[in-house]
């Protein structure tokens, strides 16, 4: 019965409030650090060199950017399996425009982003207004977009992008500018957090204890500074990493501070109650699919730019990595739970495994098995935590 459950939860909650909020993000960060330490030893110190860290972050961007959108789709109670094929089709269109039609970089990017939004809208329209289960819709469009890619590329790799286009994927921001961006970023962040806190205290709202607030601020700034310094030690911040971080900040903000974002969490938590609260569930669902389509196209842009080529097989299994990243980062398939930041950390964990295993020359058979196991363990852990909460 409802009230019995309520009472139980009540008991659990008075002691476990901190667990609910912070333990999750804490655990994934600890997991990430643990994986890094293990890989550092396993690779005899190659893993945590500044060159490899720079490479690792660059490698994670295509998945990371998709995971940012994927987590919101999962939060809303949907799923999208077609992201890998969107990456491929966007890349193919870009390559054809650049190499065969000799179109400039800016128009290419615009066309590519529009493609992403359009295919996202197709997925979204069928999954929401037409009520076809999104799993089936995107399973079908996964095949359709892959087919379109083969059609556009003629089944072969198209290479030779403009240098300005390539820069998006393999360029670096020079260390000096990186340093400036990082400094501005950190200062803005600190000011933002402090004003927010002042604002709250002045209106008489409860805030975290001041020493915890300070510890949190300093820790986050230190980590950012350390990462930037490490990357600067090599060549500077890779351009795609800057793009990903910018997207992460924007989408994270959207998810928490806009009506659109808040409605997604409500829809995923209880779609019928959301409808009865005046939310147009179909419309918001369409938007979130469009957002994921857009981000998948950005991912395709970066991948194509980095490889300097569009291949028919580009983006294969990206859906697996992106969904894994979102789930490892704390998203729940029952909807309503998950964060953008968590998904990016999840993507970083997946990328670290890929990168580390490549350095170690682990055969791809074993890589597949290991990645599958990681996803299983993450979900199992999650379910265990949840059922404990209930019993």
């Amino acid at each position, binding site marked *: 019965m409802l*009230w019995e459950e309520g009472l139980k939860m009540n008991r659990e909650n008075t002691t476990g409030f901190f667990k609910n909020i912070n333990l999750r993000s804490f655990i994934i960060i600890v997991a990430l650090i643990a994986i890094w330490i293990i890989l550092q030893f396993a690779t005899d110190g190659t893993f945590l060199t500044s060159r490899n860290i720079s490479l690792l972050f660059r490698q994670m961007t295509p998945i990371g950017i998709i995971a940012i959108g994927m987590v919101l789709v999962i939060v809303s109670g949907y799923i999208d399996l077609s992201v890998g094929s969107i990456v491929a089709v966007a890349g193919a269109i870009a390559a054809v425009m650049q190499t065969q039609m000799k179109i400039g970089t800016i128009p290419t990017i615009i066309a590519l982003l529009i493609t992403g939004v359009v295919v996202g809208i197709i997925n979204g329209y069928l999954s929401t207004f037409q009520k076809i289960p999104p799993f089936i819709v995107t399973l079908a469009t996964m095949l359709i977009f892959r087919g379109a890619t083969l059609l556009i590329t003629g089944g072969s790799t198209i290479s030779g992008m403009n240098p300005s286009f390539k820069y998006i994927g393999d360029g670096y921001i020079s260390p000096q500018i990186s340093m400036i961006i990082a400094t501005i970023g950190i200062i803005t962040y600190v000011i933002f957090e402090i004003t927010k806190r002042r604002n709250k205290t002045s209106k008489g709202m409860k805030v975290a204890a001041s020493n915890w607030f300070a510890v949190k601020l300093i820790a986050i700034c230190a980590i950012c500074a350390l990462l930037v310094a490490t990357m600067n030690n090599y060549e500077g911040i890779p351009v795609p990493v800057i793009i990903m971080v910018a997207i992460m900040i924007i989408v994270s903000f959207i998810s928490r501070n806009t009506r659109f974002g808040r409605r997604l969490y409500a829809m995923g938590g209880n779609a019928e*109650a959301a409808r009865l609260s005046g939310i147009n569930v179909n419309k918001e669902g369409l938007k979130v699919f469009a957002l994921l389509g857009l981000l998948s196209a950005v991912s395709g842009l970066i991948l194509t730019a980095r490889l300097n080529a569009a291949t028919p097989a580009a983006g294969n299994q990206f859906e697996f990595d992106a969904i894994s990243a979102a789930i490892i980062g704390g998203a729940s398939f029952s909807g309503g739970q998950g964060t953008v930041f968590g998904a990016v950390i999840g993507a970083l964990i997946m990328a670290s495994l890929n990168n580390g295993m490549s350095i170690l020359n682990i055969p791809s058979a074993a890589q597949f098995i290991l990645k599958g196991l990681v996803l299983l363990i993450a979900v199992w852990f999650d379910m265990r935590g949840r059922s404990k909460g209930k019993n």
Partner: protein
Amino acid sequence: MVDVTRTWMLEMENIIKEFPGIKALDGVSFKVEKGEIHALVGENGAGKSTLMKVLSGVYSHGSYSGSIKVDGKEQRFQNTSDAEKAGISIIYQELSLASNMSIAENIFMGDEPVKKILIDWDAMYSRANELLVRVGIQMDSNILVKNLGIGLQQMVEIAKALRTDNKILVLDEPTSALSKSEIDVLMNLLLALKQQGVTCIYISHKFDEIFRIADSVTILRDGKTIDTKSIDSLNEDLLINLMVGRDLNQRYPQRERVHGENILEIKNYSLFDYKEGKERLHNINLSLHKGEILGIAGLMGSGRTELVSSIFGAFYGKSEGQIIIDRKEVKINSPKDAMKQGIGLITEDRKNLGIFPVLSIRENMVIANLDNISGSIMVNDSEEYLLCDQYVENLNIKIGSTENKITSLSGGNQQKVIIGRWLMRKPKILILDEPTRGIDVGAKFEIYTIINELVANGVAVVMVSSELPEVMGMCDRILVMHDGTISGELMHEEATQEKIMSYAVGGRP
């Protein structure tokens, strides 16, 4: 004297079942004689379903006190399959057949006849056919259940119940979805089964059915057994009296009753449900005034919830007729439209339609209100927190922090959060569907007080409730529904439980 010759099939003695804050069953005793049809009646919430859940093992032994004897043998059910083994079969209002399997597969689900490890299809179909004959259906048991009408599906359920060594057959509101001729068939079947020695407990609101087939009647009220009587010693009036009791407790805060101007008017309103293929509401006419509490009473399935949810634009179906708000005819096709017109709806099913279980109290509260606390796109963070704190205080919601999950709250406090969600919108018309269901007495009084404050400020309130004392204590005017129509209207002063009840069962007072 007579007692000596009686043999009891079921003896439930002094059953007490408590939920936090609520005594659902308070020393209920319920005895059923072998081979009789025994009707169990009472208002919604009197404890009938709880009693049947105790009997069917939904509530395991130990979670209630008291004793159960079936056929003279003491029983301690740990779960529903224990109860089934002891020969108790319950057929619920919502049928639980797998629609894309055959009749035979449904009858033998979970207990398929086997030869070694393979299913013995021949035995299954022939035994299923025998059972179908026993319930009076001439039909091949390999037909898929989805091809059957609801009446026949019910027969299949009964056949399924008769498959095992059945001692007691319980039917919970079996006729609520049946047509008149289907009801006749069911009545005749139950009488025929009685001839075969089947003992039956029949739960129903419909007096004509009870007087047609029952041998005796037990009346429950407020979790207590009021009386068990043989059908010959009863008539409808007497039964209504026993069901509703006579005392009306002063559990409702007083207020001045004023009538403001007309705010909502509904004319010739009908509602057609495509999913079920039937008319849910027929030719409804009502008006609502500022500062008024309009009660809507009626039994379950009479169309109360359908009426309010379709006014709110939340019912999937086609409606006809006019809705006039502030003297302007409006079209309401979605909850969003209704909210634009200043209507709020607090749903009956809080768990499934009200709360967002994974979200915090704050998020639950502001979700219908994001357009008011945000600019064109962004949500104003601190305004949101302040607004929540303000409503938490005003509504006296007992919580640690607005960041806790809503599921950490008791039912009463959850309901107050939902009420807060709608009050934030400053509605002109607030519809409350069963606002106090599953809520303890103290919180009920607080919710009544909140409602009174609202109407004092000129809000018009529609209150749907199954609890007659609540409707009578709170409402200025009461509409009684029966079978999708409004069967009666009573002013506060003239309303009595007996009058409401007789309108609700479709009669005239």
